[in-house]
Each structure stands twice: as C-alpha cells, then as structure tokens.
C-alpha cells in the first residue's frame, strides 16, 4: 500500500472553494486564502510556510519559531513585544512549528479585534501583518544574526519542552509508535524537533536556515474575518516572495509487506498506554477517504464506537479507548489506557472488530449514526475558522481535489459495502505498549 502527496503549483488565476477565495501573489509563491465573514468579532492572519519533515531541519525550524516569538527589530525584547500586542486590545501573536502529516509548517499567527468593537479605528489587522512580516524578515538580530543569548536560552527552552512532552505517557506512546512504524518515513519525525540535534545549532546556522526556509516552496496566508479579498491581498503584499516556486514537495508512505510488530517498552507509568497503528493506503486525496472517516467513527471514533462498547462498557478493561485517522498518510490509530496483562485481550478485540467489519460491514444503523455525526462535524466546522484553515491547508498539502462541502456530499453517499471494503484494506503495522515497569527501555522488546 502506498499513498503520495505533493504540493503542486497552482494556477495563476485564483480559485474559490466553499470556504475560501484564493489568489496568488508574487507569481504564485504566496497564496492568500480569504474567508470573509462578519460572524466573528476579530480577524485573523495565519501564515504557513511548509516543508517536508526532515531530520536536523525540523529541529532548527522549531528553534527558529521560538526565536521569532521573542521579538523583532522594532520590539527587541519579550516584554516590549508582549506589551505591544496587549496594547493592541489583547491582540494575540504566536510563532510555532506544526505537523501536518509528513509536513512541518512554520506558522505565524495574529488575531485582533475588528474596528467596530474599538473606541476608534485602529486598523489592527494591518499592524498585525506588519508584525508578522517583521518577525520573519526583520527579526531581532543585532549583529546580522540571531542574538546568541536568545539562541542559548531557546535551546535550553526547547530541551525542556521536549522532555516535558515525552514525560506525558500518552504523548510518548504515540511518538514511539510512529517512530517504530515509520522508521524510514518523514512521519516518524516531530515538528518540535529532536533533543539530540539541538546542540548542533548556533546563531549563524539558525539565521541561515531561516533565510533558506523563506526561499523555499509556496507559502499560504489565511485571512479570516470581516475583510474582502482585495484588502487581504494588500496585507499579503507585505510578505516578500519565496523564491523557488518550482520546487515540489512530495512524500509518500512506505510500501511494506512486513508482518505486524508488537513492541512493549517499560517506563514509570500508572497504567499502560497502548497505541495500535494501522495502514490503510487511503488518504485525504483517495476516493474511499469518506468511507475511512465513517469506519473510524464506527470502530472507535466516539463513545458509541464498537471498541468503546465492547472493551470499556462490556469488558471493563479500560476507561479510555478511541480511534483516530491521520488523514495525509491514511493511518488508523487505536489508543487505550490498559493494564499490561490485558494487552492480548484488547488487541484481540481490535482485530476481531476489524475482521467483523471487513467481512460483514457495519449495520445500517451504525452507518447512519456515524454519517450523522460526521456530517454534523463537517458542517459545524463552518462556524470555526481554525477548523476551516486546518482542513484547507491539509487538502492543499495532500493535493486532494476535495473541499469541505464536497466531502460532505461524499460522506452522504457512503454505503455499507464501501465501509466493508475499506475495512479490508486496514492492515495492522505496529502495536506499541508503554507498560508500567522499573526498567526504562529506549529500544524496546518484541
């Protein structure tokens, strides 16, 4: 099974989906996507600069995002920057690296109240665009490179952040399962970087990396609020172009015939954390993706899913069990908090339910229920601009020719047989258990 996604250059005329009007700027090197709505009391700017997750680079970008949050040439300290945004009536600014499937995006966000809620016109969104542009192109770099003190502070900060993240047992189990499952794929990497790589960076390498990142690929600026496309594009003009439009980002999932793996690692934990990773080969751009969405809900998407009913309610083996889909790779994960002695029983239940779905399909009632929940969520997403942005960016990175309302229509068409057929494509790859035990294990027993 394999899936492949690529970021393709868009046409130059612009496009319109159910949620966004999009226009290219700078010869298609920056796309401005506008969701015009008076529903909100604030407007938002979200700039995404994506790249495929890569070792070393991912860590560097994570460090850069922290530095961009510290200040700019105009606001050269954390206190000055925070005071500036507070005085913009509690405007919110952040920079972060985020994961979208096999991609890492450097994201800069700004949100602020609309003028109609202020005592006088302040044009906060224009000030926000300036802030984001300055953060990227005029960062605090007193000698032409990032401030070395800041770099050292952020290296320590990122080390602490990564350590805290892995101390969360559920995060750690999810991370380890992906690392084992996707040992040679970008999916194994975290958008937050790797602790062991932090030491290698200094102010010079990070400054060069930011410059390089700004010159790669296509950027996406999402503007949401009471604003029209022309005004939004004017804001976008504040961002100098990325230079290499022809570069194509392309990733795929691994072809694999290897047998399913079962890995148990030990650590200090009050309860075992189980993550079972499956491959389906059905990602967002695939015609069967709507059926995969519904299969997930039927299996373990919510409290009425089969696994919840069987493993928790009937067997009392856990408090938490749920499944979720990674849309860009077509992975299906099941996660649960269990006693280690129940591992095999829980795995058997998961296998059994998937086999039943593959042989008999869901009941009509199950399918109808899952469809209603899915439609409610997809249609309700129209009220949440963060959800709209997330979905639109995912579909662009996945080169999926489906927008939200088309997906709604496709979910309406899913039949029992489609879910059954999708269940036949689900193959377990890795079952990972972080089990309570005195021995901390980095490698893992099988």
């Amino acid at each position, binding site marked *: 099974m394999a899936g492949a996604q690529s970021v393709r250059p868009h046409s130059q005329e612009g496009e319109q989906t159910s949620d966004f009007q999009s226009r290219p700027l700078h010869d298609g090197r920056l796309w401005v996507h506008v969701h015009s709505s008076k*529903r*909100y*009391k*604030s407007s938002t700017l979200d700039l995404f600069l994506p790249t495929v997750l890569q070792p070393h680079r991912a860590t560097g970008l994570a460090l850069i995002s922290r530095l961009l*949050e510290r200040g700019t040439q105009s606001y050269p*300290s*954390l*206190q000055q920057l*925070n*005071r500036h945004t*507070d*005085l*913009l*009536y*509690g*405007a919110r600014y952040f920079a972060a690296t985020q994961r979208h499937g096999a991609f890492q995006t450097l994201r800069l966000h700004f*949100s*602020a*109240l609309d003028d109609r*809620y202020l005592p006088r016109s302040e044009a906060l969104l224009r000030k926000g665009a300036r802030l984001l542009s300055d953060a990227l192109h005029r960062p605090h770099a007193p000698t032409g490179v990032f401030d070395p003190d800041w770099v050292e*502070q952020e290296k*320590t*900060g990122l080390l*602490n*952040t990564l*350590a*805290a993240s*892995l*101390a*969360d*047992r559920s995060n750690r189990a999810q991370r380890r399962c992906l690392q084992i499952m996707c040992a040679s794929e970008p999916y194994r990497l975290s958008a937050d970087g790797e602790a062991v790589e932090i030491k290698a960076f200094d102010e010079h390498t990070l400054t060069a990396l930011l410059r390089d990142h700004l010159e790669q690929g296509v950027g996406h600026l999402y503007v949401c609020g009471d604003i029209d496309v022309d005004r939004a594009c004017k804001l976008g003009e504040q961002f100098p172009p990325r230079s290499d439009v022809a570069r194509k980002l392309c990733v795929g999932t691994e072809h694999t015939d290897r047998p399913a793996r079962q890995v148990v690692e030990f650590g*200090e*934990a*009050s*309860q075992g954390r189980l993550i079972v990773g499956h491959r389906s080969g059905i990602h967002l751009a695939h015609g069967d993706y709507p059926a995969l969405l519904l299969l997930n809900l039927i299996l373990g998407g*919510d*409290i*009425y899913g089969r696994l919840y009913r069987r493993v*928790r*309610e009937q067997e*009392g*083996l*856990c*408090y938490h069990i749920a499944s979720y889909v990674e849309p860009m790779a077509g992975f299906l994960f099941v996660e649960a*908090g269990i*006693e280690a002695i129940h591992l095999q029983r829980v795995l058997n239940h998961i296998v059994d339910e998937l086999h039943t779905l593959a042989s008999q399909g869901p009941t009509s*009632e199950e399918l*109808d*229920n899952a*469809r*209603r*929940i899915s*439609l*409610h*969520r997809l*249609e*309700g997403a*129209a*009220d*949440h601009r963060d959800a709209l942005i997330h979905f639109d960016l995912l579909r662009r990175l996945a080169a999926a020719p489906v927008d939200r309302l088309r997906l709604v229509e496709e979910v309406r068409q899913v039949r029992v047989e489609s879910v059954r057929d999708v269940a036949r494509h689900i193959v377990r790859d890795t079952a990972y258990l972080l089990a309570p035990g005195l021995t901390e294990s980095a490698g893992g027993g099988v």
Partner: protein
Amino acid sequence: MSTQVGHGQQPDSSERTHAMLGERICHHRWQNGVQLWACPRPGRSVSMHLSVAAGALHRQIPGIELPAGTAHFLEHRLFEKQDGDLSARFAALGADIDAETGYTHTSFTCAVQPDAVDPSLRLMARLVQESYFPTEAVEREREIIQREIELYEDHLEWVAFHAATRALYANQPIAEDIAGTTQTLCSIDAETLNQAHTHLYGPDRIQLIIVGPVDNKETLDLVGELFGSTASCLNTNLTRPEPAKVVPRRIETSLAVSRPRLWLGLGAASPWDKPHQAMQRELHLEWVLDILLGGASPFFSQHYESALIDAESFGSEIYVDEPFSFCLIGGDTDDPQRLGETLLATLIDSQTPDQIRADVDRARRRAYGELVSSFEDDDSVREFIETAALRSCHPFDLVDLYLETDAEDLIATWDLTIRDREAAWAVVGPNVENRSGD
C-alpha cells in the same frame, strides 16, 4: 428590549441585548427553580449545556454522608436507562455529548444540528431526571472508574493540582480526588446513587444554557415542557457544601517527570454571600496577576531569560466558588524553592500598588480584547454565560464589571487576597520525596 437586572436579584424572565457586543441573552426561571439562559446567534450547530449543582463537595445529604467520588460515579451511571443506553440515542441524532464532574457542579454538554435540538433536549431531560442503577452495572462501573483514577495518577497537571489542593486544604473534602479513591468507590452502591440523585438532581439545582441558531420562544416552550413542571420538594439548603478552610502547608509528591512543577497556593474566604463579589474577585485577581506576573511584566521577562520559568507551563489559575476561593501560581522549574521565594517576593512587594496604577491601562486593553473574543464562538459564549450564571450574575453584568474596574479595585483585591497571605506549597517532580508537612 432590555430589562435591567438589579444586583443580587434575578427576575423570572428577562431579555437583554448588549449594544456593544451585539448579543442577546434571554433568561427564564421557572417556579420550580429551573433556569434557562438562551443566546440565539447564527450558525450551523447548537451548543446545549445542562449544569446540575451536584459536585464532589456535596457530601452531606439528609440522613447520609456520601463517600468521596459519589457525584462523579453518578455522572458515569446516568447514561444507562431501563430501555437502553442513551449514548446510542444521542448518536442516532448525530449529537456529540460529553459529561464532566467538578467540585460544585456536574455538567452535560451536547452539540447538535439545529433540527435535532428538540429530540436531543428530550434526551438530556431523561439523562438527569431518570434514575436507573442496577447492581451489576454499578459493579462494572466501579472497575471503569478505578481505571480512570489510575490513568490520571501519572498525569502531571492533575497530580500537581491535587497536591496543591491538599497543600491548601489539608484533610478536607476539597483535598480529595473528585473521582474518589479505591476505598471510597467500594462504599458507593446503587442505594447511595439513588439517594444522591434524589437530593442533588432536583429542578432547583438545574441550569440550561443554549447557544446557537435557536428560536427563543420555541426553546422556552420546550424547556418549560421538559423541565419547568417537575416538582421541587427538597430543601436545597440541606445540601450546601461546607466552606473550605485554608490551612496552608507544604506538600511534596514524587512523579517521574522531566522537571519539578511548583504550585504556590493562596487561599482566602469565599465572598459568595455577597452578590457579584465572586465574579469581581475572579476578575480582579486575573488582572492583578497579569500585571505582576504576565507576559508583559518585568518578572516574566527577567525569569524567562534566566530560565527559572518557561512560557509553556508558567501561569496562574483562579478558582472562586461557593465553598472556596484560591489561586495557584507557578509552573515547571529546575529550582522550585527559588521560584517560590521569588514569586512571593514579587507578590507582596510594597511597590505593587504603584505598579498596578502604572500598568492598569495595558491590562484593561488586554482584558477588553479577551472579553469581546469570548463572544466569538458558541462554546466560548456558553462558557462565559456559565461563568456568570453559576455565580448568580447576569452575563452582561460581568461585561460591565470589566468596563468599570479601576486600579483601586485591583489594589483592594490584592490587599485582601494576596498580600500577607501565607502560601501553600506543592512540589511535584522527580527525585522528590513524598512528604506532606503539617
């Protein structure tokens, strides 16, 4: 139409529009005590929230002392009825349903498409009004809750919060886990649940908040039909939680995490008996802590740069409710002792009034932005209404509190709740010996 609501009095019915926010909130209280807050606004989903004044601190009901964890156990068992599990019926409506138990309330939240409001609300009424606790199901639920307790035993946020409440309120109900313990779970049976349901789920303890594309008249009629006519014959005063008494001490708890987490706890008597004061206390504390420790403060910059604090975990939480009033301040740090001492020195600094006066305009602008943003999506509108409604305030009165607050109000709150207060210390982390110093 706008009807002014006087402080401390709720009329039986009101409809108020806030011109600046452009929002309308309708409130109705039926004779049996059930209250509805409806905020009609455009959208594709309706958020319905049912709150019952039945929380972990409601331990005394006539004739019985409820074991710790009873309210939470009850919340778990309410979905199953004699004719089957209501979860499946919510699913058939495409509804997302969730439930949560806190110290003073249990809440059920349902998000649903507009055309499913009627049947979903009927299910929510059944959820809280019908009791059905077969012994076998109660036994099975005990196992599930035991798993839930275990799941949270290594969850840093929860362990640290629990350590902080133990450090503030030694050996009192608030210091016990909301879900109870293995021992207390064993003493909760079907009869306990029946008793608790009878006394804690009366109509005078129920508030409904509905936000989204709904018709106010239709909603009022439907809620009236489902909730407004049920009889209320129990005396709510018999089931009030005891006020928690602040007894600060130091608690150290071992947990395998990367760095210690420090919470300093500052408690005070709850101002619940005076209308609007709980809201004022919470609001003023937020501003004071923003000025003294927030992102734009000298404290934050200095100690972020020295790595004593980090941006991800450092912050404060404020809890003001009928039986308690406290705030927690802290975060992850390599040196909890130094962080605690530095925090205390900053919090009680004699220059604080001057700092508040100098920075109040920035804090006001920031708070104003957060206030208006609270009315952007249905869930945050619902949370805003709940915050006010559970404190016997009209939500728009809370808006006015924001606009009327000045530096002297903040200084008075600082003086009353922070200055000269003895702090409780809770340290959770690696290489920490379990210790609860009295």
